[in-house]
């Protein structure tokens, strides 16, 4: 399985890919690989994380190679949609983080055009993960809400218990409960 996770620095894409890698490992995948573009991303740049399992040599997914795209931010979802196979699955957070170039008037964040592009090219599921995370009292758990939504849609080949174990073994102990809640709320959001 090939998964691409995209977002903005600070949104926890790398933690999410670690959890999925851990879940894949726990479900008996012989080989899991992840790859990230981190670099300057700590300072609000785009982040892209790849996850692959199976008989492959490198973690890097080509355009048109992903079975699943998870995007923690709206326009990052559009930017990275070409990684998705035609007919692949996508879960995209509707929350927007406007880059500085937009505030300064050097670029435009056209929400309608971005959403239109995504809908035209995929059957992506949109979810307001930020709203759910904030309702749990911590916007930082957007990443886990998104994992819950992907699981709820049936896009992840792991059991629920496996994913919860992977969350427990990856996040800091003081945030375990919050994150398991976030995971459940993510699942619920797809059941509506």
């Amino acid at each position, binding site marked *: 399985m090939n998964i691409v996770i995209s977002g903005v*620095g600070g949104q926890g894409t790398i933690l999410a890919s*670690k959890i999925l*890698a*851990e879940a894949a*490992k726990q479900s008996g*995948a*012989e*080989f*899991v*690989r*992840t*790859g*990230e*573009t*981190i*670099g*300057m*991303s*700590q*300072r*609000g*740049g*785009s982040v892209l994380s790849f996850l692959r399992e199976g*008989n*492959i*040599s*490198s*973690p*890097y*997914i*080509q*355009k*048109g*190679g992903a079975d699943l795209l998870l995007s923690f931010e709206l*326009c*990052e979802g*559009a*930017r990275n*949609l*070409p990684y*998705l196979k*035609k007919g692949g699955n996508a879960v995209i957070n509707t929350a927007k*983080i*406007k*880059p*500085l*170039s*937009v*505030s*300064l008037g*050097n*670029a*435009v*964040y056209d929400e309608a*055009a*971005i959403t239109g*592009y995504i809908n035209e*090219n*995929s059957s992506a599921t949109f979810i307001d993960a930020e709203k759910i995370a904030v309702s749990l009292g911590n*916007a930082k758990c957007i990443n886990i809400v998104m994992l819950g939504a992907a699981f709820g849609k049936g896009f992840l080949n792991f059991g629920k218990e496996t994913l919860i174990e992977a969350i427990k073994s990856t996040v800091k102990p003081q945030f375990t409960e919050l994150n398991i809640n976030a995971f459940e709320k993510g699942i619920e959001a797809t059941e509506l």
Partner: protein
Amino acid sequence: MTETRYSYTRLRGERVEISEILSSRIENMRKLLLGNEAIAQAAIESGVGVVCGYPGTPSTEILETAARLKADAPNLYIEWSTNEKAAVEVAAGAAYSGVRVLVTMKQVGLNVASDPVMCLSYIGVKGGMVIVVADDPGPISSQTEQDTRHFAEYAHIPVLDPSSPEEAYLMTKAAFLMSQRLGKPVILRPTTKVCHASATIQIAEYRIQNIEDRYSPLRGEHCDDLKDLHRELPAGAPRFVKDPRWVIFPPLAYRRHNEIAEMLQKESESATEFDKFYNEHSRYGIAAGGVTWAILNDVLIDLDVIISRLKIGRPHPAPLRLADTFLAETECVLVLEELDPVIEDILISRKGVIGRDIQIMGKRSGFVSHAGELLYADIKKYVCDFLGLSNHDNEEDLIAAPDCTPVRAPVLCAGCPHRASFYAVKTAAKGKNPIYCGDIGCYTLGNAKPLETTDTCLCMGAGITIAQGIKHSNPDTTVFGFIGDSTFFASGITGLANAVYNNVDVNIIILDNRITAMTGGQPHPGTGKTMMNTDSPPIDIEAVVKALGVGFVKKCNPFDQVSAVETVKSAVDFNGTSVVIFEAPCINLIKKPKLYTVEGCIGCMRCVNEIGCPSIFVEDKTAKINSDLCYGCGLCQYVCKAGKIKEVTL
């Protein structure tokens, strides 16, 4: 003692086995490790006694992981050194004494460390010395695309080039053994896509030693029980032994030069377990190394192509016989490698030696691009062009790229004290048409709109010194040199001494955010923390500057804009070298104190256009503050002339 065979997948369907002798009570574990974590894990398992380095993307996590694993290695000494030169020299002293050492840095750090590294190949080491130098094709977060494989050749040092995290793990172990066998340092050269990729790797729970080299790195003696390595050093253990071999003099250097050449020649006769010729008896062949090798294998499988391949894992000294065999069996060769044409040059020179007319396609022939990473799509295109295959990417099979996504460049964080410092300097220098000389760190981002306070950036420490050269040639101009706290200790002090002694009228701004921030928050001599979890009296930057004899030295909080601006104005008025130290912690060191919100915005956009804070965005022609991103610095409140920005207590 039990012999365990380790295996890992190098190519689909093929497993490579490396046998090692393990001590009793070994449990094999499979762990998901980052390439950098794998290197640290392997070094700890190899009994490394001293780990030094200077932070730099993509190498930083190696030393941080080693520090995390310290519980497994009680005798381990570990430090973030002041700079890469210091790191190599500290490690060399330990290696002279028979201890295994690991040094970590990024590729431009090797330039700083080049003085000791160039000499070390002549002097050699006793304990195994592995210098990890992470290259950054792209470049993704570096000034250059320099190739450490070339540097290793220049320095006469063997270099290993891993293609994956698991190979980085095995190569680290092999590098320690190679270093000890040859008595020379060995460079391990991972690239960003190996450092920052993870893979499930089978590791040993305890340190392991190779069969021909069960040798206690700490004691310089044979050691059967590997757990002995963790015990306290016994009294009378071998230490540094005085010997003329440790003193580099011209006659010794002359003798060693010939010895090194002979040694490298001899090594190049054989290949390592990381070099391999996969002979498919095809007329066409592909040679590759590093992460390009791993991606190439995926591409070939996806294209369903079976072709002879040469993998180079030790580019210097190159496995010449293996290269000759590959060339003898092929007629047309494609060379795929990132950065310099190192493998390509090896093959071109061997082609001349064996006298066969072989076409070699690569960077020298203009077939492959010199710059940037080789991504899957690039490799696929080169392979298809080389073999005359049509590139199967049908446009209709792919989702077309969007044209509606705004660029998202990295910015200084909301609440970053550098923004306030830059803004104060800009305000103070208004109307003077100043020149801003920047340096390496988060604050290089000061070049972006709307701050635009970085006109030059070259390398670590160059802000202070380039400012001097600009002042000499533009005497009527106000010139600023910016430098961060960690960079000041790494290579700023010498440049400042140069300014003061030569009485140059430059204004040096030290941006002291109390941490090495760019690489994720490492301690430096000004922080009071060490990697041994001890406290140390922090070195006071202000005292250092005063001791150098700077005539104008003032420290202030950049968020106190009124006094910050006044201070910079006085510094500019001072005739001679002046230093202003802006001290305020990186936001990653503090809890969010409060936040700000906009009430009744008049839409003048002054906050947006003056300071460029990423937490401020525009909606319905008014400014709004993203409460999640806002870190409560209050600079926007100072800038808002309409008084519409209000403080919110948390």
